[in-house]
């Protein structure tokens, strides 16, 4: 089957990107932090999408992670960034563990709508809950790392950048290993024919639930990053437009390549900040045009730029490239 980068090479890449942050200007640091954090949750959507199910409500787990961390930070003074990510992942994961098996037997548009509905119920509850600040939400303090607190904003930004790049990088490596695994192959099989999967003695629901759990863990951790970056949380975390943006990144990326998720997330953040700068109030328009372009020219996502198709690659050399054919014509 296809060979990809060796995990050690990927670890080296993550280390390089982390160190490169030292040389980046401050505004790119925070942009890259958001891009990495969004990539993490979008990666979860891609993991789940490989079973044929799209979640339009990852904001639920994003918010669960964010609120969970924020509450624990304010109640017990837990400020360590790494601990916060772990707490966020755990909050998302616990919720995913409960919800996954309940909705795994639904598929297609029902699955998508159920996830959306659940996230909107959560949103509604958050808005109504005065203890959590209602629709205004509440603030949290700056994160620390291993007992160090960062008063210099540039240092604080770099710390957050480094933690988010490393965590997201490792999630990406884990996802790559997962995609190539026995379980990853069975997940693709579920997408194609879940009845046959059952007939082979495997549980399609279990496979979907496990992928769902992974997506929820990633979403919860991503919520923790968003909280650390904004130092504020409100019900918007669970709102459907928030979830929509993550699906947007996943669609841009396609589900063939983990790296594509990072590229797509970065591209989205760049488009967003540049159009904010030069075309104020029209960035959604720019974004729409950008998505249209990707759908028209790269229907299988940005990943298809370097991964042609799961199997077509082998055959490419056997068939003459289009340009050569055209060149041969009079």
């Amino acid at each position, binding site marked *: 089957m296809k060979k990809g980068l060796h995990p050690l090479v990927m670890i080296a890449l993550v280390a390089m990107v982390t160190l490169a942050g030292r040389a980046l200007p401050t505004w790119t640091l925070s942009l890259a932090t958001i891009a990495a954090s969004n990539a993490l949750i979008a990666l979860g959507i891609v993991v789940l999408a490989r079973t044929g199910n799209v979640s339009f409500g990852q904001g639920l787990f994003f918010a669960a992670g964010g609120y969970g961390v924020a509450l624990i930070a304010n109640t017990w003074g837990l400020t360590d960034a790494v601990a916060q990510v772990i707490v966020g992942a755990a909050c998302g994961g616990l919720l995913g563990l409960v919800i996954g098996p309940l909705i795994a037997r639904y598929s297609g548009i029902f699955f998508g709508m159920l996830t959306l509905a659940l996230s909107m119920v959560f949103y509604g509850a958050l808005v109504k809950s005065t203890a959590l600040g209602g629709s205004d939400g509440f603030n949290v303090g700056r994160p620390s790392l291993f007992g160090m607190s960062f008063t210099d904003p540039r240092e604080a930004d770099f710390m957050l950048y480094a933690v988010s790049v490393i965590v997201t990088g490792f999630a990406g490596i884990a996802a790559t290993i997962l995609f190539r695994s026995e*379980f990853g192959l069975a997940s693709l*099989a579920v997408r194609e024919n879940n009845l046959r999967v059952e007939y*082979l003695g495997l549980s399609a629901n279990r496979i979907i639930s496990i992928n769902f759990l992974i997506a929820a863990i990633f979403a919860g951790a991503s919520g923790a990053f968003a909280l650390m970056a904004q130092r504020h949380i409100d019900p918007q975390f669970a709102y459907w437009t928030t979830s929509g943006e993550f699906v947007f990144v996943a669609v841009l990326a396609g589900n063939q390549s983990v790296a594509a998720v990072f590229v797509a997330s970065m591209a989205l953040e760049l488009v967003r900040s540049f159009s904010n700068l030069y075309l104020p109030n029209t960035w959604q328009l720019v974004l729409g045009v950008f998505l249209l372009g990707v759908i028209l020219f790269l229907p299988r996502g940005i990943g298809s730029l370097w991964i042609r198709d799961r199997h077509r690659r082998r055959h490419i050399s056997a068939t003459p490239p289009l340009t050569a054919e055209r060149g041969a014509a009079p």
Partner: protein
Amino acid sequence: MNPVLSVSRLEKRFGAVVAADALTLDIPAGQKISLIGANGAGKTTFVNMVTGYLKPDSGTILLDGMDIGRRSPRSVARLGISRSFQIPQLFVELTAAENLTVAISGIGTRMSLRAPAEAQGRRDKAVELLQRFGLADLADRPISELAGGVRKLIDIAMALVRRPKLLLLDEPTSGVSAEEKFTTMDRVIHAVAPDAATIVFVEHDMEIVSRYADRVVAFYQGRILADGLPADVLNNLEVRRYVTGGVR
């Protein structure tokens, strides 16, 4: 000897259609049984009920004495009944070897989230199975690029992976040309032999039936019209009138 499968008074209706009408049938180990019957006679419905896909309205299905009539296809598969499909049910975007790899994953108790799909001998086992059907050179081709007859064989290979106590094949030679039908069936019978001794196959071609079956069960409107040795059943007057049309 006790039968592997014992079905009694099985009933199934779809609205006004009676797809199974008091079906009673014992299948002893080691037999090759052919199910024949016109279109809509209830052959596939029988296979669907035995494999847990359809729940019978009434009646019992015993596998080695255990009632499996209310179990799911997954549970029935785990207990030792495998099937192939009239229309192959494969993962068309995966390769032939990957399809079998998924089937091989189904044998274990838990799947690895880390070990590469083709590791731990799964790839070798997949290729060995394809080899038996003469398809080893197609191992890395996606199913979407393969012809219908080949898909049919891969569908059967998938069913073999569990080394079932009972193997049900729904029209293994449909879609195969008249010249190739015997070679195809020879291949199937040989490929299946090491892993499955008790076979039920649905078949429309009476030449295939008389050559490969030890016993023939003829269906008509959900009922069993005749059950016995191929020569006897195929010469039965009712069978000739309602199933084989007397001429075929």
